[in-house]
């Protein structure tokens, strides 16, 4: 079967689903963060595929920005996790129930 947009999107969806599953299922903050990266990458893949099959480069420019923002986000997020760990001695979501008073 000839590979087209549909196949790329399927891969992208499945990757996104994996990331989502990881975010909801895993308890370790770092792994959750990695799952988030998976979801971002799934979006990237979809964008590049759209760009390719619509003959427009704008999608790829968007991916470029996403990668940049993701890098910034990862650095800040990890710094937050480190700061949190210093206070609570844990990087585990079950120990971080500050949202419930």
């Amino acid at each position, binding site marked *: 079967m000839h590979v087209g947009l549909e196949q790329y999107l399927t891969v992208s969806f499945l990757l996104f689903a994996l990331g*989502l599953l990881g*975010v*909801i*299922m895993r*308890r370790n903050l770092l792994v959750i963060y990695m799952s988030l990266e998976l979801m971002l990458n799934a979006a990237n893949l979809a964008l590049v595929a759209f760009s390719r099959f619509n003959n427009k480069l704008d999608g790829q420019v968007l991916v470029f920005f996403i990668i940049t923002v993701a890098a910034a986000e990862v650095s800040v997020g990890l710094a937050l996790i480190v700061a949190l760990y210093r206070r609570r001695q844990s990087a585990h*979501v*079950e120990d*971080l*129930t*500050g*949202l*419930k008073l």
Partner: protein
Amino acid sequence: MQHELFPWLILFLPLLAAAAITLFTLRSRALSAFLSIGAIVTGFILSVIFINANGWHFSAEISRTWLSIGSLQIDWGLKLDALSMMMLLVVTGVGGAIHVYSVGYMHEDSGFARFFACLSLFTFSMLGIVLANNFIELFICWELVGVSSYLLIGFWFERPSAGDAAKKAFIVNRLGDFGFLLGILTVWGLLGTLNFSDLHGQLTANPAALGLSATVAGLLVFCGAVGKSAQFPLHVWLPDAMEGPTPVSALIHAATMVAAGVYMLCRIFFLLNPEALHVIAYIGGFTSLLAALIAVQQDDIKRIIAYSTLSQLGYMVMAVGLSGPTAAMFHLTTHAFFKALLFLSAGSVIIALHHEQNIWKMGKLRYKMPITFWTFLVGALALSGVWPFAGFYSKDSILAQALAQHDYILFADGALVAGLTTFYIFRLFFVVFLGKEKSDGASHAHESPAVMTLPLVVLAVFSLIGGFIGIEGVYSGMFVGESGISTGFAAAIFEPFIHSPLAASLGLCLVAIGFFAALSLYAKADKDPLPEKLGGLATAMKNKFYFDEFYEAVFVRAHDFIAAVMNWIDRWLVEGFCIGLIRGGTDLTGRALRLVQTGNLQTYAFFFVLGVAVVLWLVLK
């Protein structure tokens, strides 16, 4: 009109004094007394100047708009005519004498300044009733009088009986005032104005303006007088009000406040139709007989005089009902003199015996307290209606009025009460001032200071001459259907015998019978001989015909029962069921919703994704 400012000053000076005492001079006894007495004495002097300048037969209104709501406009106005000007003199004059007397009577009391603040507040309210030119103003002052009366009856609030008496007076008065307010509303609803002059004008132009409601309106307004003037069936509060200091009893519960009801009836006399007047007359007559009978068997010196007040108020109300407001106002004025005199003399005795009020523990005070003895004697003679004392003239004009109306039942009633009055007041007189000393306190009594005896003497003079100095002439001509009587000074002394010889002579006969009955029974008695002779009747009289017990059994119980039912409804139905349901429902929902808030990050993520899915579904479908 000259001195237009004076009535305002007369009205508001006591209020200023009350405010100043409460705010600034509570610590200074002398200054408080000075302010209070100064206000009322200034009021008296200004009244005299004002009346002198304007003459008696003069009528005017000064008013300022106070507030206006829709078609209802309420003025704060002063109505000045013979009726209100004479009352000004009575309130400030008798009130002034009592203020001075209070300096001596309350000398040792720690609440001295507070007492004078209350007295001044009372004086203001009473003057407000007297000067009011419309129903609302009258009603407001009426209630203020009730408040100050409450404060003064409960003056010694550390005594439970005083607190109870104050509450009783206040609550019983509320019953009457409720009817009064309904009456005022009826009048306003039917005639659209509350100003006395306007009402009078409307009713003169069209006597049937009130239509079928005339009797109802009149009787509802009369309810107010029933409460304030302690007429049957709301008479029960007045004897208990004697828990207050004696000057208060004299000022409020004898001379002025209780007379407010009668004054009000005279003020709105044009409103009352014959049917209403008939009811009023019989209630008055019945009250006067009832109270006189009860007074015969009381042992507390102040209670006897209190019941005598009830009886005399009954006379006045009866006079109004017999279409004789002049007679009523005449009796009100003379009664203010001699009843204040009697109370103050009794107070002098009470102080001399260190707050002993039982007459069977007194006796032989004649030589120890000569001034009090003589002034009390004058008061007793005036109350009995012995010629030529003040009470004779006013009582006679009421009896004559009954004869003129051909109401022989009320005439007989009035004459009988006159005899009973003489009997009980001389019973008191003989037991207290003559006979033997019946206790140690009585043998060590001594005369009161001049600050107390001076007002007694002044009041005694007025009780002696009040009947023939032209007071009746001032009132006459004020009211519809009465012709003015104006006679010379000398002729006035004998006027009753010429005007209505039957009433005068029969009255005097019964007074004589009463006097000699009291003389024979009590001149040398150690204890009361009547219970043995009368048996059950005497017991009933002593127990005030069981009115308090009856009210307790019927109204208080019924009230308690209703209150208990309401309590149950409130507690179980309203609070338990209705509120409980809402509260429980809220609580349950809250608890259920609380489970959603786990604090777990991933639970939130889960719901977030579900929300996103719903949004996507809605957008993409």
